[in-house]
Every structure is written in C-alpha cells, then in structure tokens.
C-alpha cells in the first residue's frame, strides 16, 4: 500500500528521503529493508509529540503481559508513557524489517542474554538460519531511540544537551572517568563547553559499554578512554553520498591496550537541536584493521503507525563526531 522507505536518491543530491508517510487509521507500519553492513538505522520518538490516548492504547495492545505489567507498575503517567513508548518503539521498529514473515509487532519475543542485554528471540522454523538483526535502545525523559544493525553489535545512548549535572563535573570525571578523559575536561575553561563535552563523553562511554553487551562490570568506565580527535571539521561529497568527517573517535582499554578496541566504530550526533546521541557499532569483519570506514546512517523521527520522517540529511541530525556517511 505504501512505498517502502528505500533510500531513493539521485546522484549528487543528498541522500535523504523527505518522505512523510502518513498512515490512515487502518495503521500499517511502513516496511524497511535491513541495514547493510556498516550501516545503522536510527529511529527515535519524542514523547511530547505523542498525545492521543487511543494511540497509546494501541501501543499498549502490542505489549506482552509482562511488559504491560512493567509499564503499569511505574508510578505516574509520565513514567508509564515513557516505558510504554520504549516497548512500542522496539516492537514496531523490528517489525518493520519483516524478518521471517514477522509483520506483527505483537508476535515478537524478547529475552535477555546472560549479561542482561535484551535480544529478540527468533522463532526459526526448521532450516531457517537465525537472522542477524541487532538493536539497542536508550531513553532520556524527552526522547526514546532505537538503533538497528545487521550483523554488528550496537549500543546507543541519548542524553539531553542541557541535562543538569548535580555534582561538580570535574569531581565526577575524577571519580568515574579515566585519567585522560578527566584531564581533557579539565583543560576546558568555559564551563558550558565543559558541560557539553562531559555529556558527549558520557554518551560515548555508555554506548560502548552497551554495545559490548557484557554488563558494566566487563568494562567499568574508569578502565577505558574515549578519545575524540578534533581535527578540522569537514564535509565532502563522495560520489552521491554526503560524508561528514567531524573527528575521529577511538576507544582504548587501559587494562588491555592490545584488546580489540579498534574493532569498534563511533558516531556522535546532535539530534533535534536538543540531544546528543552516541552510536557504537562493531566494524564489519571484512574491514582491515586501520582502514577508515564511515558509519552509514539513516535516521527517522517516528510516531509508530502515524508518521515516519526520514531526518538524516536535515538539520535534525547533525554529525558532531566520528566518520559518518548520511
């Protein structure tokens, strides 16, 4: 009924589909093709934009009994809505990829891996191999996001730019960040810039730990350094793609410098002018060590069943770190 959100672009044009697919009350989810290697799909919903009670009820209808119970056990309407939207976003997003014929968000089953990271349980029929869809969600009070990849572990984190830090930023960094990171933050004299850099570092570190998927004890924040090498920001057109090279982001483990930290790739974005979003994904195994390969990113602002807006390539998605191809 509705065209799928394929990346339709003409040469030399920015590759963004300014499509706003507005579904009627018979709500279907616009299907999407799986991301290709080294590509991330990033979906986000702004709770303030979801007001319709009937829509929220519709989302509630997608949840499993346990999920419903968890949502309703949250005290207060706002927290319930946030929890509900998080589950609805995950289910509807994964359902869009129509894997193994799963079109109904209700039919998806989830479990936690041995470290507690949520995963989809694919009911594979005999002979079907397990699809390699990876996802990770994050929520702040005003944004809920879900990142999706094929064949590559992923972790994401979103935070409000203006989020208040109750403790002194440097004291916090001294306590929880690595020495290198703390020194970097100390070197910033402007307190507002320091605050912003703190939040960016936090999201990058969170995204990394979540991508590892082994729980926080596997990589305590103090044991690894995220380095943002801000060389000159530049963007250039490569064939028909728009590539942003804001800076190089690297992670180094302090306990084990030789560990495979070079197999992780980062992207840092400013979203909707109000949030920082960090994405950490595993580099494709085919990429040689040391090769610089951009993260291909397609981002959608969504209200599931109502509206999907492809926002990569617009002002809503500003790359501010990493090597990103939009």
């Amino acid at each position: 009924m509705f065209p799928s959100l394929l990346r339709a672009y003409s040469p030399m044009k920015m590759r963004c589909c300014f499509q706003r697919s507005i579904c009627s009350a018979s709500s279907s989810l616009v299907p999407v093709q799986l991301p290709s290697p080294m590509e991330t799909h990033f979906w986000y919903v702004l709770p303030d934009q979801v007001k319709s009670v009937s829509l929220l009820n519709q989302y509630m209808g997608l949840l499993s009994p346990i999920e419903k119970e968890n949502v309703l056990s949250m005290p207060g309407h706002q927290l319930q809505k946030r929890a509900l939207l998080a589950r609805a976003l995950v289910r509807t997003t994964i359902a869009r990829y129509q894997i193994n014929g799963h079109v109904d968000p209700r039919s998806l089953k989830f479990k936690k891996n041995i470290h507690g990271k949520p995963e989809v349980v694919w009911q594979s029929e005999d002979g079907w191999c397990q699809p390699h869809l990876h996802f990770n969600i994050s929520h702040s009070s005003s944004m809920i996001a879900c990142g999706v990849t094929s064949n590559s572990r992923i972790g994401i984190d979103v935070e409000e730019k203006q989020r208040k830090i109750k403790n002194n930023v440097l004291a916090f960094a001294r306590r929880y960040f690595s020495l290198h990171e703390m020194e970097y933050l100390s070197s910033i004299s402007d307190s507002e810039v320091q605050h912003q850099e703190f939040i960016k570092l936090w999201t990058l570190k969170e995204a990394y730990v979540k991508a590892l998927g082994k729980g926080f004890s596997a990589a305590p924040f103090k044991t690894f350094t995220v380095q943002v090498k801000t060389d000159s920001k530049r963007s250039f057109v490569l064939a028909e793609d728009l590539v942003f090279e804001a800076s190089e982001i690297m992670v180094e483990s302090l306990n084990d410098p030789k560990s495979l930290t070079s197999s992780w790739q980062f992207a840092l974005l400013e979203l909707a002018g109000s949030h920082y979003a960090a994405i950490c994904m595993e580099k494709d195994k085919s990429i040689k060590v040391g090769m610089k390969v951009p993260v291909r990113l397609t981002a959608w602002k969504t209200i599931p069943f109502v509206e999907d807006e492809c926002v990569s390539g617009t002002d809503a998605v500003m790359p501010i770190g990493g090597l990103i191809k939009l």
Partner: protein
Amino acid sequence: MASIAGASISMTSFSSSLKLTTQTSSIGISSLRSVSLPISGRSFPSLRLKKDASRFRVSCAAKPETLDKVCEIVRNQLALAPDAVVNGESKFVALGADSLDTVEIVMGLEEEFGISVEEETAQSIVSVQDAADLIEKLLEKK
C-alpha cells in the same frame, strides 16, 4: 537382587547429579531411597534457603536515619515532586532515574557518608533499600 540393583542405579544417578562423593554408599539403603525420589527441588533444602536469603538480607535493614538520608538525596537528584512517594522499596528506575542519575546518586551518597563504592557495586544498586544497606555495610567496615 533386583531391589539392590534398583537402589544402586538410583544411587548413581543421585550422586552424579549432586556430585556426591562415594561416602554415600555407606548410607543405609532406606535413606538413599527416600532421597533418590524424582528431583523436583522440594527435597533440596539448599535451594529453598537460597530463595529466602535475599529476603533475609533485606530484613537486616539499615538504620532509619540512613534510609531517610538516602531518600532525601534521591529526591534531590531526581528533582521529584514533594508528594512523590520515596521509600526503601522504591526502585531508581521506577522513579525515573537513568544510568547517569544512578551514578550521580551514588556519588552524592559517597560524599554524604564518606564512603567509597566500587563501580560494579554501584551498578547493582537497584532500590533505595539496596543503597541504604550498602552504606551501612561500608560504614561498619570503617
């Protein structure tokens, strides 16, 4: 003969599942028979003890003043409404805290009580009671 053979078979399966030493062979057959019934978990006191252990831990509660102080710090960090209910059972996630909030709360507690919390331990704090109990434990060690 058959009954002895039967007992020895069940003994083997019993001992292999529980990794008992061969000392069990010295136990009378009658007691063995009673233990080698289908392992449904009910005859295994160790399992039941484990289940109650967490409840046991919580009931060795922190002092009320400690708990109150923790609630106050949590309220401040999460900027909760004055009428929001915060007590020992309150889970941070249920109060709207995310991971950064949790870490900030722990830092606030460290400063307030003059303690130091390992990062791995900090991440395992789920409720106000967990925090208060941990504080008491750390204060005792001082």
